[in-house]
């Protein structure tokens, strides 16, 4: 496909690999976190780590919405579907996230709950329009990329006068999660997660722009390079990070100029600001309670807020015993450090959330990286 294939070209990749190899300084480590699961997936799938010099280490970040969704929230969605009799619509990735019990939305469906996988929020709206006797709830998750489509759906439901449609909102914010990582004891004090820079989000940044990351460059003196999700984009971003580190710079640079501008998508930001407001705090799997890190539906759209309509409360639930998803999401551990990895926890039968989505660090490593010796050697 145009604008995809060109950014996966092997010859250009080798050229970029040579450039990185030529510019890294021997005797020092370069530790970069790719925030997004999309980057984690690209790095694993295309063997980018194998093209990097030994002293460039990629740390997987928490930017996988399915992975950071806490069990308690999935429990609430399952309860809505199983016990409150609603038609629960959600994206495909969410269907297999393990909840308590050991239930998933998929298993709840097998038990008779009306759970439907949708491609778009517009599909959920169509279901609500077509089946006015059903109470339809859209289980919304995702970062800033996925938030504007939910906002549009809520506004459209209002315009259509729908009374049987609501949204269970779990949208989360990227900058808050980056702050949380930079403030974590592992990075700030203990130093078990050395961080020299970030590969910044691709599609999140098409919406929010490159400006929100300037704070991290200035306040924490960490370079950020926004990169597209194709392997050449990631490699070019790594080269740009290596150059910043070598030159002692900490700036926000943009590799993904074909879709990201400093200000982002003003129209999308405006509709999000109209419909949503900040939550004081939100629990993330792995990161715990993170202040001002998620969105809820504004009072003016209360009729479309499933939490208000069904009185959904929140109960925190611990991860499965032995599961290292939390430490993996913070960059403290790698998938192969988890005892469950590849034994009882596999993509076919995941125990932890990082094994569910293809963007999850464990799923990506299981699918593409397990047998690559180089990646394993660099662990630790």
């Amino acid at each position, binding site marked *: 496909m145009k604008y995809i294939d060109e950014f996966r070209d092997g010859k*250009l990749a*080798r050229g970029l690999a040579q450039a990185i190899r030529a510019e890294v300084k021997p005797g020092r480590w370069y530790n970069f976190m790719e925030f*997004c699961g999309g980057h984690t997936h690209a790095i694993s799938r295309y063997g980018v780590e194998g093209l990097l010099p030994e002293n460039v280490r990629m740390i997987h970040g928490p930017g996988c919405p399915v992975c950071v969704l806490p069990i308690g929230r999935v429990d609430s969605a399952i309860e809505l579907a199983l016990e409150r009799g609603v038609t629960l619509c959600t994206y495909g990735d969410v269907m297999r996230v393990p909840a308590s019990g050991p239930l998933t939305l998929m298993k709840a469906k097998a038990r008779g709950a009306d759970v439907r996988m949708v491609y778009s929020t*517009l599909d959920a709206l169509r279901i609500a329009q077509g089946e006015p006797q059903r109470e339809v709830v859209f289980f919304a998750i995702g970062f800033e990329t996925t938030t*504007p489509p939910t906002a549009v759906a809520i506004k459209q439901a209002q315009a259509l006068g729908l009374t049987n449609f609501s949204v269970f909102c779990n949208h989360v914010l990227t900058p808050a999660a980056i702050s949380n990582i930079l403030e974590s004891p592992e990075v700030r004090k203990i130093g078990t997660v050395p961080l020299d820079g970030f590969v910044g989000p691709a*599609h999140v940044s098409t919406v929010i722009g490159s400006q929100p990351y300037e704070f991290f460059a200035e306040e924490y003196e960490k370079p950020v390079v926004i990169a597209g999700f194709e392997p050449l984009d990631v490699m070019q971003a790594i080269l740009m990070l290596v150059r910043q580190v070598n030159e002692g710079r900490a700036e926000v640079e943009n590799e993904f*100029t074909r879709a990201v501008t400093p200000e982002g998508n003003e129209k999308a930001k405006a509709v999000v600001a109209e419909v949503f407001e900040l939550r004081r705090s939100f629990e993330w799997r792995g990161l715990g309670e993170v202040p001002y890190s998620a969105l809820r539906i504004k009072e003016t759209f209360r009729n479309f807020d499933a939490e208000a309509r069904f009185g959904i409360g929140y109960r925190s639930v611990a991860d499965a015993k032995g599961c290292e998803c939390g430490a993996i999401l913070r960059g403290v551990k790698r998938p192969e450090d988890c005892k469950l990895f590849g034994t009882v926890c596999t993509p076919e039968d995941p125990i932890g959330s990082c094994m569910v989505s293809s963007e999850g660090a464990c799923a990506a490593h299981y699918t593409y990286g397990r047998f690559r010796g180089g990646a394993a050697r660099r662990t630790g």
Partner: protein
Amino acid sequence: MCLAIPVQVVELLPGDQALVDAGGVRKEVSLALVEGVGVGDYVILHVGYALHKLDEQEAKRTLELFAQIGEAAPSTAGSEALRATNG
């Protein structure tokens, strides 16, 4: 979850909708989140919505930059070995 693909707008439809071509597959998507998109433009498509117009000039410039960087990089023994194994 944040995955999105570049698709080309084939036809503008009523109600902020458009018909797009995704590698030969035609699909109706929403243009509610973008402005100034016309037939022939490429947009970044995510969960049924165009999120941003793709700047074709910038894409071209980025690819040219990749090629220049590769040409300028010194060839090393390590990368020669890589070429030998990767084909």
